[in-house]
């Protein structure tokens, strides 16, 4: 396992319209690991994802926040993406009239250019896309549909994972990728995420259910509550949460 630290944040706080949502998040993620962040609804998990991805509109402060050694907070969202920090959205956004394959290619080439590489030729690119489509058990017709327009919940999530497989981030952040999925779709999504595992890549799964973690076993589990991580542990923490609920952690922290 690589020792490289992909993401390191300390005291990350965020407020929107004067309301504090993140209250000092400490997190360190090494390459080659899978982290799970679990917590009840409204605890600020999605805000953490958005803030890490660079969403505007939040007042963000931190003792430090580093992505691959770079100061994260001044980076624009597209810079973060180009450096390898990609967020799989809880609610993937519809872009009417823009073909899925067009966005994939625009994104793929933006990332290549950022790395100083040449843009992919059409043949090379389509070969890659077809391979990843098969992995996600997606039909080629997906490519010619407008981005997320009229996609079912499951299709949207599979499409997010497909983007990850093609764009190969250093840090893949999944915001509730399991919500709204039936068991078959969940399995395909989980397989996709497992296929992403690599020694030079970190994966962070934000979820409040255990079932995704049965398919994608995490190395580290964090419990999120009221805007910060209140407890971290190994996989067994999932079991404890499952049997005792979040309330148990909350009380323990309070006590």
């Amino acid at each position, binding site marked *: 396992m690589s020792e490289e630290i992909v993401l390191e944040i300390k005291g990350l706080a965020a407020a929107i319209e004067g309301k504090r949502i993140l209250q000092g998040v400490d997190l360190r993620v090494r390459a080659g690991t899978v982290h799970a962040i679990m917590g009840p609804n409204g605890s600020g998990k999605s805000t953490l994802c958005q803030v890490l991805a660079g969403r505007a509109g939040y007042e963000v402060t931190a003792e430090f926040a580093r992505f691959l050694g770079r100061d994260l907070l001044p980076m624009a969202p597209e810079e973060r993406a180009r450096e390898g920090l*990609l967020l799989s959205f809880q609610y993937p956004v519809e872009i009417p009239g823009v073909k899925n394959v067009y*966005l994939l290619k625009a994104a793929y080439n933006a990332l290549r250019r950022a790395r100083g590489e040449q843009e992919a030729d059409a043949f090379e690119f389509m070969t890659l896309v077809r391979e990843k489509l098969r992995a996600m058990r997606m039909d080629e017709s997906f490519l010619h549909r407008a981005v997320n327009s009229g996609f079912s919940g499951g299709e949207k999530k599979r499409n997010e994972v497909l983007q990850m497989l093609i764009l190969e981030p250093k840090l893949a952040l999944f915001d509730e990728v399991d919500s709204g999925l039936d068991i078959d779709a969940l399995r395909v999504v989980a397989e996709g995420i497992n296929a992403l595992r690599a020694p030079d890549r970190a994966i962070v799964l934000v979820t409040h259910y255990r079932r995704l973690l049965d398919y994608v076993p995490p190395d580290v589990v964090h419990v999120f509550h009221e805007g910060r991580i209140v407890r971290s542990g190994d996989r067994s923490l999932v079991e404890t949460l499952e049997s005792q609920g979040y309330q148990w952690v909350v009380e323990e922290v309070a006590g």
Partner: protein
Amino acid sequence: MGEQFSVQEWVKREYRYGFVTEIAEEVFPPGLDEEVIRRLSARKEEPEFMLEWRLAAFRLWQQMKEPHWARAVYPPIDYQAISYFAAPKMGKDRPKSLAEVDPKLLETYERLGVPLHERARLAGVAVDAVFDSVSVATTYREKLAEQGIIFCSFSEAVRDHPELVHRYLGSVVPPGDNFFAALNAAVFSDGSFVYVPKGVRCPLELSTYFRINANETGQFERTLIIADEGSYVSYLEGCTAPMRDENQLHAAVVELIALEGAEIKYSTVQNWYPGDAEGRGGIYNFVTKRGECRGAGSKISWIQVEVGSAITWKYPSCVLRGEGSVGEFYSVAVGNHRQQIDSGTKMIHIGKGTRSTIISKGISAGRAQNSYRGLVKVLPSAEGARNYTQCDSLLIGSRCGAHTYPTIEVANPTAVVEHEATTSKIAEDQIFYLQQRGLSPEDAVNLVVNGFCKEVFNNLPMEFAVEVEALMQVTLEGAVG
């Protein structure tokens, strides 16, 4: 940041055609009366019927009032302060060949991206170049003439084909149609003329490039396109003007006539100077465009990309007279800064089984006001007529406006008329999502705008897709996959 930043960038795009050509021009003194019209007609050596036609139109115009029902605010126009004729000095006759055309004019069109030289000409596109009040060159005319296609300036058509002009001029837009059409009929100076004979499929895209250059003049051009039985022609007009602090009037008339089984596709890329960010200057674009599907099974399509002008007042329409004839209107209208756009179409169903489609995409940014105004009228004779209208508005920022004024009049119970309308904002969500996939905010806005306009862009002639791309600063869809 996010949306705000990208929108500012997008909105800041500069007008790239604002230069002035320094060239000696013959300009009539400002003012309009019968004497000016006589002088204009004499200057153009017109036959008597043209002068009479102009004078009749002028007398009608004097009885008419400038219309103000459009959603546009502007100070009164002083019609006596405008010069009604401006032409580069080039001897008495129009140059016989490009070698005789003033190099400054050739250079102007070169800078506008419409080279006229034999070597540099756009492949597959014949161009008529109109500079202020006159046509200065028409390319590929001999090649077209081989198939009997007439493509020339309006002045030449009046001289060389008076019978065609006499027969069709004003037959779709009569001089008394409206205030601006009457003014145009009285003072129009040049424009393009197209005749495609029976059964001929025009092998080239025909194009007119309109350029306003002179100061304090109006441009009043007239275009007449006749597609004889079973013929096909695709035509495109482009327009630009220098950046000036004063407003300039452009009141054009376009008439299209499609006989039995003929098809006319008329595309416009309108990029007149829109004025500056504060709304100073810019062209008043008050245009009457109408096509008549006179014969059975004929078809007329209007495709317009409107990005320029301080005020746009324009409703390219179709009169569907022939049985089973088809009218189409595909429009993208982009308003920025303080531009005011009032545009749309009229589909008049007269013949049995006539069909029409209206796809209108309005984009508003800055403080622009963008209105769609449309009429779908089904007469009692139009058994089984069908219309589908889709009218979408996209808002960028919160200080602009989008308005929709659709009118539907159906006098035949078998008609089917559908209307759909949407208004959306470029969502911060969309921009953020695309940024999170590595796209710059500008590229993200362009991608969203491009997706929004796709149904219209898909109908533009291939040759002009690139021009529109540059114009809208968008990357065109469909390049991959």
